[in-house]
């Protein structure tokens, strides 16, 4: 669990965004990953095939375990800065329908 050394209580210095519909406030210039961790989220995505949950691992843009969806595009939460009104969602699960191939 991660929390700030100094809680950000100044309402004028906060940016608002949503994650799967949930309202989250964070300090300016915060990455989506840091903001979500601070908000208590531990898993960000599910593995496309196994469905297992994953959260941020490297925080430097190399591991791709913090993938989230913004405007229909999968992006790394750790290299994406929160902007006012940003709509972040979890990447939809695969629903591979192999049965329909037959």
């Amino acid at each position, binding site marked *: 669990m991660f929390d700030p050394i100094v809680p950000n209580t100044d309402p004028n210095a906060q940016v608002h965004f949503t994650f799967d519909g949930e309202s989250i406030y964070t300090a300016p210039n915060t990455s989506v990953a840091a903001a979500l961790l601070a908000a208590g989220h531990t898993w960000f995505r599910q593995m*496309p*095939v196994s469905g297992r949950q994953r959260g941020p691992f490297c925080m430097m843009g190399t591991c791709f375990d913090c993938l989230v969806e913004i*405007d*229909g*595009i*999968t992006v790394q939460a750790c290299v994406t800065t929160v902007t006012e009104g940003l709509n972040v969602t979890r990447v*939809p*699960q*695969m*629903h*591979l*329908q*192999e049965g*329909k*191939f*037959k």
Partner: protein
Amino acid sequence: MTTMIIGGGVVGLSVAYGLLKQGQDVVVLDGADGDFRASRGNFGLVWVQGKGAGCVEYSLWSRRSAGLWASFAQELQDLTGFDLKLVQTGGFEYFTIAAELENQVAKLLALRNASNGDYTFEVLDNVALKKQIPEIGPKVLGATYCPEDGHVNPLFLLKALSSAVQKKGGVIHTGTKVIDVTSTDAGFMVVLENGKQLNGEKVVLSAGLGAIDLGPKLGFRAPIRPQQGQLMVTEKLPTFLYHPSGTLRQVNEGGIQIGASKAELGLHDVEDVLTIAGLARHAIDVFPHLAKAKMVRSWAALRIMSPDGLPIYQHSTTHPGATFITCHSGITLAAAHAELLPDWIMNNNAAPDLSVFNEGRFDV
């Protein structure tokens, strides 16, 4: 009687598996990890549509193989446990340029004529196509559809064949190249890069581009050249594409595979930005929603092309017991190579007539 197979790609392993099923002893000699390997870079189609225009025997050979594929895949799965993810529910070719669509229809009609009418295909306009695949974009004028087309996971095929050959008692030497092959009193001797020598009564040369150097040592002209193809694959997406096309297919893991370019660049297998950008634009023209999909990997691989683009099946006239096999459709033809080709290699009565694919056709 040991047959040494030079080349452990899909072609060599398919033949090895087939020979093993006929009770032959087989040793497969595979090269190094970094060699040019069409078996790792191909698109993964089991494809019939449009093949063999101008040579109906090739069309029939491809269709015969496609027809054998389902039982071939099942047999490999039963033996090795690997599901090859074969899907043969027909394939589309999409067209955004009217003249190209007309050409394709003319080609398919010619194939139907050459096949005495036994050649099924459909032509769909954008509206009809959209009913089948709602994601289709407005730039697509139409498509042709052939019910015999399909696709498979070609890497699973490679893995399953490696396993099947070993389970049937075949031996595979990996990681070292064959640098020489010569006739001996008892058959043939191959020399490996690591200095090892191996002997066998017969030899099959299925070394892809490696045959350019090794072919003449066995009396083959091996008039083949590399042709570069670039491909790419996207991140895994929810399933929307239930039929492959010559340029777009959704692989069993969910990624959209996009291919393939053609370029004559010699032994150059590095991908370049402009080529893959062109592939991306084609994909978006057909399925506009893919503009937001991420490309995860791209690669370049080398096709093994003969002057007329057709396979070469040739027994050596100067080195009896040596056979040369090459093609650029090793996936589509894998079933035929495993099920039908061994009889031809061993000159059995049941051998298919492959004389049209003789190397002599390139003599001028």
